């Protein structure tokens, strides 16, 4: 669990990982090694105040060099919200997150449609709808048209918004890299793991990371 200065969802995310049967190891932005973790979670927040662009400065931090190496070796990496933005800025995921096209902050529960069967969504069948909270001002995923075509064709779109809530290209809510071991999404699965809060659908995503990490660990 990586904490940057300005990260604010790391404690919820640690709790979610534990609910899903994982063990969370705290990592700091200045760390240059990952303490032999089997998976990486980049949680949401406002890393380095989101100055310059969301996630831009964090993408150059020491810990991200280690995350880059880890991802290159096939290690599972999950980025949520600001974590997704960091992964895009780092070039580990395609595209970038733009300001919501309607110009307003989104604070709502979104229905996410599972696009294809993947470990990242607990092997849920395509068409399964997950209800997960979103809270973002810069959540509109963008990539040039030819890149979007390529990403769609190679099955990298994992989750799509049921409704267009922010102007994202192709209503993309979550996308993975070509190898499939790095996944980022704007919605917050770590806020949807306890029945008290209305939905436990986030467990399939956080559990997806825990499951992939368990494979690495064996």
């Amino acid at each position, binding site marked *: 669990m990586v904490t940057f200065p300005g990260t604010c969802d790391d404690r919820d995310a640690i709790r979610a990982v534990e609910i899903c049967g994982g063990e969370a190891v705290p990592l700091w932005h200045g760390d240059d090694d990952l303490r032999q973790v089997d998976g990486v979670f980049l949680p949401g927040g406002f890393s380095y105040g989101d100055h310059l662009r969301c996630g831009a400065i964090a993408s150059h931090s020491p810990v991200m060099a280690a995350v880059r190496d880890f991802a290159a070796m096939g290690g599972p990496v999950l980025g949520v919200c600001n974590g997704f933005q960091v992964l895009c800025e780092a070039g580990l995921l395609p595209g*970038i997150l733009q300001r919501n096209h309607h110009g307003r902050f989104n604070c709502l529960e979104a229905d996410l449609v599972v696009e294809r069967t993947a470990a990242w969504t607990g092997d849920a069948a395509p068409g399964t709808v997950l209800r997960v909270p979103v809270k973002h001002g810069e959540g509109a995923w963008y990539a040039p048209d030819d890149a979007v075509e390529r990403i769609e064709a190679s099955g990298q779109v994992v989750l799509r918004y049921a409704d267009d809530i922010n102007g994202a290209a192709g209503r993309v809510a979550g996308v993975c890299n070509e190898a499939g071991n790095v996944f980022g999404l704007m919605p917050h699965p770590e806020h949807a793991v306890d029945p008290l809060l209305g939905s436990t659908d986030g467990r399939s995503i956080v559990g997806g990371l825990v499951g992939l990490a368990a494979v690495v660990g064996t």
Partner: protein
Amino acid sequence: MKVTVLVRPKDGILDPQGEAIDRSLQGLGYASRGVRAGKVFDLELDAATAADARKAASELADAVLANALIEQFEVIVHDG
């Protein structure tokens, strides 16, 4: 050496910030007919020549200040 880097949204890329400013200006009665919002970075660089400063500024703008997917940048060297 003083260098200015201007970062703008690329042509054709949606700029919700500029659009919101445009709408507000129109609402205030100004004759605004389109706004594109960018950023200005005034840098003080350690460089021997203007060419060196331009090269260094272009490198850091490309690597950090601008994201080439949606932004373009321009470097202005204030020589002397």
